Structures are given as structure tokens and as C-alpha cells.
């Protein structure tokens, strides 16, 4: 059981990193990016190919995966910069599907639908599966913690305030003299870097990636994490990711307890439960379990001195 929990911990960590990255783009800047699995794929493939085909050391591969995902993020942001809301969502969704279809059909890049197998993991042979998973849990936790503080630092800085401004009213920000386009691109660059990092780590963890992995299902799970946890809140993103993985996994143990249903009905019931959970969260915790807290500007408790002085003159 404990080995299973460790492996699920790694999955939760990877979901959390994706949720944190998404939170910058979607939660803060308000840009609905449904193509997150595409950037995840870029990170995974870049690091996988570099370490497998060119023998790069794993840390360097992961760094390259992060960087390339970020560059692709910038490119996609520049293409979609004039799109907002649903239009941006559909174009980014299209980007992720394009990535998947290109990787399926261009066999020379990474074996097409056969996928890349045997991606090295740090000390995989020496440690054996259980210690390797434990080690990876350490790596993923460390990466998530670092990413968490980076995101916190970023969103609490003036930069983060501008992103929130863009989310709430783009025109006001523009009137205030900010270059909205640059801010949007920067938000994409940072967020997609986190997605790429998560992808690269995932590839080295499971040792196998294939286009089928990068289906929209994963995007939806991460979106669900954010909605459940609380959009625009880093703690919410992490809590949501852990909750989603916990929920996905715990339903496995609950379903067999339901009497009188077949395995096929159980599988359908499991999907239904996930949908119902989302609906319940959206109905009763529309802002997530840990809602975003927006710092209020300090309100004067006593009348300002000037006003008091004027009063006295009268």
C-alpha cells in the first residue's frame, strides 16, 4: 500500500505543478488555456528525446524541456494574443490536439504512436522500483515547493497585480499605461515553463511517453484540480491537485463496495462520481475550496488629518 501511495504522491505532485503553471495563465491573467497537455507533451518529448537519443544528462534534459515548452508557450501566446475567452480556449485546445496528431503521424520525430520507451530515470536501475519512486517523490515535492514559492513571489509582485488587472479589466490596465501584450506573453512563458517541467519529470518517472498520453483527459483533470482547489490561488492549486488524485484513486476502492453492479457499470459509475463531484464543487464552492484572497487596499480607520484640519477651520 505504501508504495502505491508514493506513486500516487508523485502523480499528485505532477498534477500540482501543472495546476500551478495553469494558475498563472488562467487563474491570474484570465487566459483560458485548454492546451496545457500540449506544453506538457513538449516538455516530456524534448527531455525524453535529448536524454534518450543524444545521451544528455537527465537534469540538463529536464531544463531543456522546461525551456523549450516555455519558448513554444511564447510562440502560441504571440499567435493568440488578440484572442480572449472562448476563442483562446478553442485555439489552445487545437494546439494541443495538433501536437498530438503531429507526434502520431510524423514517425521520424519520436516513433509516432509507438511512443518513446526506455526514457532514463535517475538511478532507476540502482535503486529498484520502490526506492526509485520514493526518490522521485522527493524530487517532485521539491520541485513543487520551489515552484509554489516562485509563483507566490510572482503573483504578489507588481507583475502579478498587473496580471490580475488584465484578468479583471484589460482596458483599465491599458489606460494605466501597461503593455498588456507583453504581460500576457510573459504569463504564458512562465506558466508553460511549469507545464514543460511537469511533462519532463513525468517522462523520466514513467519511462514511457506516447501521443495517446497527451489526450484532453489530462487537461480536464488539471482544470478540475484548479476549479476544486480555487482558481487564482496557489494553495488552492496544490490542494485541488492532491484532492483530484485522491478522489480519482479512492473511487477505485469505493466502487467495489457498491452491491449488485458489474465492473463495467462500476467504471461508468466512477466517471459519473467525478462529474457529480465537480458539479457539487461548482454549485456550493463556486470559488473553490480555498478561494483566492485579493488583498484589500488599506482603508483609513480615522478621518485623514487634512479633513480634520478643514473641519476645525470651519
Amino acid at each position, binding site marked *: *500500500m505504501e*508504495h*502505491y501511495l508514493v*506513486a*500516487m504522491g508523485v*502523480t499528485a505532485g505532477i498534477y500540482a505543478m501543472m495546476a500551478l503553471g495553469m494558475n498563472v495563465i488562467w487563474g491570474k491573467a484570465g487566459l483560458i488555456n485548454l492546451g496545457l497537455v500540449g506544453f506538457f507533451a513538449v516538455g516530456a518529448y524534448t527531455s525524453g528525446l535529448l536524454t534518450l537519443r543524444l545521451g544528455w544528462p537527465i537534469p540538463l534534459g529536464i531544463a531543456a524541456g522546461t525551456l523549450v515548452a516555455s519558448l513554444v508557450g511564447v510562440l502560441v501566446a504571440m499567435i493568440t494574443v488578440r484572442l480572449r475567452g472562448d476563442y483562446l480556449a478553442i485555439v489552445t485546445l487545437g494546439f494541443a490536439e495538433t501536437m498530438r*496528431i503531429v507526434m*502520431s*503521424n510524423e*514517425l521520424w520525430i519520436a*516513433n*509516432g*504512436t*509507438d*511512443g518513446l*520507451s*526506455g526514457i532514463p530515470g535517475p538511478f532507476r536501475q540502482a535503486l*529498484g*522500483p520502490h526506492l526509485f519512486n520514493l526518490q522521485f517523490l522527493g524530487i517532485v515535492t521539491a520541485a513543487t515547493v520551489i515552484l509554489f514559492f516562485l509563483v507566490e513571489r510572482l503573483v504578489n509582485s507588481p507583475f502579478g497585480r498587473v496580471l490580475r488587472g488584465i484578468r479583471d479589466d484589460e482596458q483599465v490596465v491599458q489606460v494605466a499605461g501597461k503593455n498588456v501584450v507583453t504581460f500576457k506573453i510573459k504569463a504564458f512563458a512562465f506558466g508553460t515553463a511549469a507545464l514543460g517541467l511537469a511533462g519532463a519529470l513525468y517522462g523520466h518517472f*514513467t*519511462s*514511457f511517453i*506516447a*501521443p*495517446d*498520453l497527451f*489526450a484532453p*483527459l*489530462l487537461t480536464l483533470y488539471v482544470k478540475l484540480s484548479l476549479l476544486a482547489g480555487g482558481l487564482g490561488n496557489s494553495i488552492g492549486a496544490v490542494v485541488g491537485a492532491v484532492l483530484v488524485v485522491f478522489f*480519482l*484513486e479512492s473511487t*477505485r476502492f469505493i466502487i467495489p463496495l457498491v452491491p449488485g453492479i458489474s*465492473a*463495467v457499470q*462500476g*467504471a*461508468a459509475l*466512477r*466517471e459519473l462520481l467525478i462529474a457529480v463531484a465537480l458539479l457539487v464543487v461548482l454549485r456550493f464552492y463556486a470559488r473553490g475550496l480555498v478561494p483566492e484572497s485579493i488583498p484589500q487596499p488599506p482603508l483609513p480607520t480615522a478621518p485623514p488629518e487634512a479633513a480634520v484640519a478643514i473641519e476645525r477651520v470651519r
Partner: protein
Amino acid sequence: MRKTTRRTILKTAAAAATVAALPINANAQSGEPIRIGILTPLTGAGGNDGPRMLKAMTAVFDEVNKQGGVLGRRIETVVEDDQTNPEAAVRAARKLIEVNKVPMILGTWASAVTAAVAPVCWESKTFLMTVSGADSITLLPHQGFLIRTQPTSKLQATAHGEFMLSQGAKRVGIIGIQAPFALPNKEHLENTLKPKGAEVVSHVIYEKDKPTYRSEIDQMMRGKPDYIYTNGYAPDTVVLLRDLYRAGIDMPKFAQSYAVPQATLDTIPPEVSTKVYTGQPSADIESPAYKLAADRTGDKEPDGYVSQATDWASMAVLTIAKAKEASGVAMKDNVRKICQGSGQKVYSAVEGLKVLAEGKEINYEGASGPCDFTDIGDILGCRFRYMHVVKGKLEFLKLV
């Protein structure tokens, strides 16, 4: 106090009985059940085939349990849904291996899922049986922890090519889904057709989940084929057949048996499915294994997946009996001792258990074929069963 005493006596008696019974493989079911992991797609693209495979496997295990189980222990299945998605499948496999401690996992369907689950299995010394047909699967460094009952692309495409030649095909148009078997199939078909004066005139690959394949059909028809080789799964093949009918294309069409199950045929008008031929790896025509699988599942003509699932379950039971233990390593080391060689031929798990109990060697002959495996886990060879669709019903044509 009295209660405890009785329990103690019972326990001692049961333990003694078990010990006494062990060497002769008694019928009494005692001890912990043997847990076997089943990981089939129950939702997603494979949701059409997974449930049938699951049913076939449970039918075999039920039969064995009724006869007293194996090694005097009941067989219990732990079923997980692989969601036809590699990421979800890996999580499910980890649960089966780490929580349920299953010695083997039966049932992965999509090649990408199998390739993702396989490393998790061999790293934890868990045995995996699959229907995934991609040539690349058995080339993975699985150290023997994987076998598949699905013939390789080469075996299949060569047989299919010969079948189409026997039907007088001269110009074959291929239209199929993008999958690991797409390209190898085309190459092997070409190699089979060329020496006999026929050829592949067009090859179109389509994306799954499209509502229509009309433009792909037009693209394929540009090569002026006289025979169509479809190479997809059930959900897309039915769309393809409808579009071929709408386009007024009236020529023989070949499909894998799993792509055109009777369930699909029942949902489309009989005109749409005229001149459809299907093929599947199969045992001998008189093979009792196939008939038994048909009786057990209540399916008149079990398709390739149902037959293969039947064989996994049977081989699992027989290997455990042969090895006298249920572990992944024992499976790897002993599976070939019960399904190939010069032992007495047996056609079901129950029959095999009886022969094994007599201390004889056995050679399991399955519903999907002879079930003889190479060192890397591919089947050595098999026959192919061809069916054709007559008025919306699958009918037996021939066995080659």
C-alpha cells in the same frame, strides 16, 4: 472460552487438511484466494471490447472455481478500468500491483496503454498478457514478463493478403486508423501481394473519432482499387462502412473481426454490411477450445478478443497449477511449459488441471490458436478464421 477453543480446533484441522491436501492438489478450497489483476478498457475507445474480454475471463475463472479452484485456492479477480488512456492505466496498474499484490495483469488492449503499463509490470516482476498487436511491444526489454496472444502485424497482414488474393483481389486500397500497426501492416501486405501480381494502390490513414470519413474514402478511391482493406477499430469502422455505402461503393471490404462485431452489425441496415469479410486468429476448426469459449460466453461466434481473453485466463490457471505457486516470476518461468511442447493436448483450464493432477505434461491449445510463444512473447503461428456478412449476420466462411 468455548468458542475460542472450537475455533482453534477448526483452524488446526483446516491447516492440517491443507498441508495434507497440498501435494495431491485437493478440491477443497481453503487458504487465501489467488488474486488476479484484470486491466481492460471499460470506458474510452476500447470500451467496446474490454467488457467482452472481461466476461470471457471471468467465465473461465468461475468454471475453475466451481471445480475446486487451483492449488486448493479460489481465484479472485480484481478488475480495474484502464480508461483506454496510458496515464490512467499506469495508475490503475500500480494499484493492482502494490495494493492487491496481483502476480499478473491480464487484458491491456491499446498498444500505447500496454507500452506504458509494461515497465511498471516488469520492474515489479508482474506478468502481463495483452492483445496489443504493435510489433514494438514485444521488443521492449520486458525480461520475459510479457506475452501476447495477438499475432504480429507480419503474421496477420500476410494471412489477410493471401485471403484477399484468394478472392481475386488485384488492386487493394488500404484505409485505416493511425496506430502502431498501420505502417507495418501496409508493408507486409505489399510484400504478400506483389509476388502474386496484385498491388496496394492507395493507403490512407485517418484520425479516430471523426463523424465522417468521406474525404478519406475519396482519397483512397483515387487509386481505383477493386478491394478495400479496412484497418481500424469498431467505432470508426462502422462510420467508414456507412460512408462507403453512401458513396455507392460496392466492392468487397476486408476488416479485422474485432472491428465488425455482430453487435455493430445489429445497429446498421444489412445493405451497409454486404460484401464485408472479417478475419481473426483462430484455433483449428474442430478445436474444442473455441466451442467451449462460445458456450461459456453465450456468444455464437466469439471474436479474436474474446478467444484471446479465454486463453489468458486458462493459461494463468494452468501455469499456477504447474508452478505450484502464483507469482510473476513463476508465471514467466512456467507459462511455456503448459502451452507448448509434446505434452497431452488440452483445451480448457479445467481439463488441463485434471491432466496436471495426474502428473502428466500438458500442451494447452487455445480458442485463439495453438498458444505457442517465442522467447520474446510473440505467438509462433496460428490459423485464421474468415467470416462474411450475409444479410447483416456473420457467417463462417473458411479456416486457413
